[in-house]
């Protein structure tokens, strides 16, 4: 439970924007808008991702996302999901920015860039990703760039001017968590450790594959500055309760990392003192 004295995570700077909550949540796949609204509330997030799709011209019915989403409360991070080449991703990014400018939402300044390689894995196409990243950076976007957990690719994306590198823990929607913790650690070191040429303030966000709260905690303990997830909440049996858990997990990992873990030892180290143990009773 939050108390008056409970610490809060520091805000996270990403390009020109600063977000207060380090868990970023997607708006896709919920059973209803009502469930989405309550899950977003429970997650504590202040930033949500959305997709850009064709407007229905003739058969529009029911509420849309924009009817259900409180744009005064949430900063919208539009994605380029579904794009399989750089040119399409750039088009979609510009369309998303135009929409958010009309809506007066601060999310107009940034984009979650995805350039996908194929429909089965939804893994990123590294060549197209880098090409689109460069073009969008030169067009003034803060690019939050989805990528695989390849450390060298992460550094290349950083070098291309991305505002944040967002490696996948595992494939989008797979729920397999952090498939390669060592890779995330190396990415952390390359991007954020001065000894490896990194900048401690450069934001690293683990995006995709999160299935459980412990996945979120692990990502944060590995040194991620934030986690972006959607399916892990939206498709949970109880999305609102899972959102509560994901929020706590993000805090747990963040504070655990800040607190500095103990080293691992092969042998035991008693927590209770050896001195003062009562003697065995003689003759018994």
């Amino acid at each position, binding site marked *: 439970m939050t108390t008056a004295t409970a610490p809060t995570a520091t805000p996270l700077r990403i390009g020109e924007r600063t977000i207060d909550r380090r868990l970023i949540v*997607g708006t*896709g796949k919920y059973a209803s808008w009502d469930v989405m609204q309550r899950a977003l509330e429970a997650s504590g997030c202040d930033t949500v991702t959305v*997709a850009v799709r064709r407007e229905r011209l003739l058969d529009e019915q029911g509420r849309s996302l924009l009817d259900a989403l409180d744009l005064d409360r949430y900063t919208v991070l539009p994605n380029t999901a579904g794009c399989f080449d750089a040119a399409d991703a750039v*088009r979609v990014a510009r369309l998303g920015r135009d*929409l958010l400018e009309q809506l007066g939402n601060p999310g107009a300044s940034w984009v979650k860039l995805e350039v996908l390689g194929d429909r089965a894995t939804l893994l990123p196409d590294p060549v197209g990703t880098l090409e689109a990243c460069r073009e969008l950076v030169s067009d003034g976007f803060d690019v939050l760039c989805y990528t695989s957990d390849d450390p060298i690719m992460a550094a290349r994306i950083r070098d291309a001017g991305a505002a944040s590198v967002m490696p996948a823990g595992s494939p989008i929607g797979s729920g397999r968590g952090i498939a390669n913790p060592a890779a995330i650690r190396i990415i952390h070191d390359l991007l954020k450790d001065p000894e490896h040429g990194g900048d401690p303030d450069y934001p690293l966000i683990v995006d995709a594959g999160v299935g459980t709260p412990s996945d979120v905690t692990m990502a944060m303990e590995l040194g991620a500055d934030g986690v972006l997830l959607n399916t892990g909440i939206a498709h949970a049996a109880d999305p609102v309760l899972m959102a509560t858990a994901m929020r706590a997990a993000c805090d747990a990992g963040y504070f655990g990392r800040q607190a500095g873990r103990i080293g691992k030892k092969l042998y035991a180290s008693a927590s209770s003192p050896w001195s003062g143990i009562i003697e065995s009773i003689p003759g018994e």
Partner: protein
Amino acid sequence: MAPRLTGGGNICDAMKLEVNGTTVELPPEATVEMLLAALDKADTPCAVERNGTLVPWKTRGGTALADGDRIEIVTLVGGG
């Protein structure tokens, strides 16, 4: 079923546009703003692309359409 601007002159002069994959007919002098009005999207948050290039929302009134234009009208939907 192709939406048409009413009172737009002789239909024989109409332009044919491809809007989100659907054929739409409009009078020759139509702009992007008029297209959105004809589709009842004037007050709907959306972004418009003409032949692959964004039409910034502030320039819709001054952006004329031409016969054969490919138009995309998009909005925001749930996504991750």
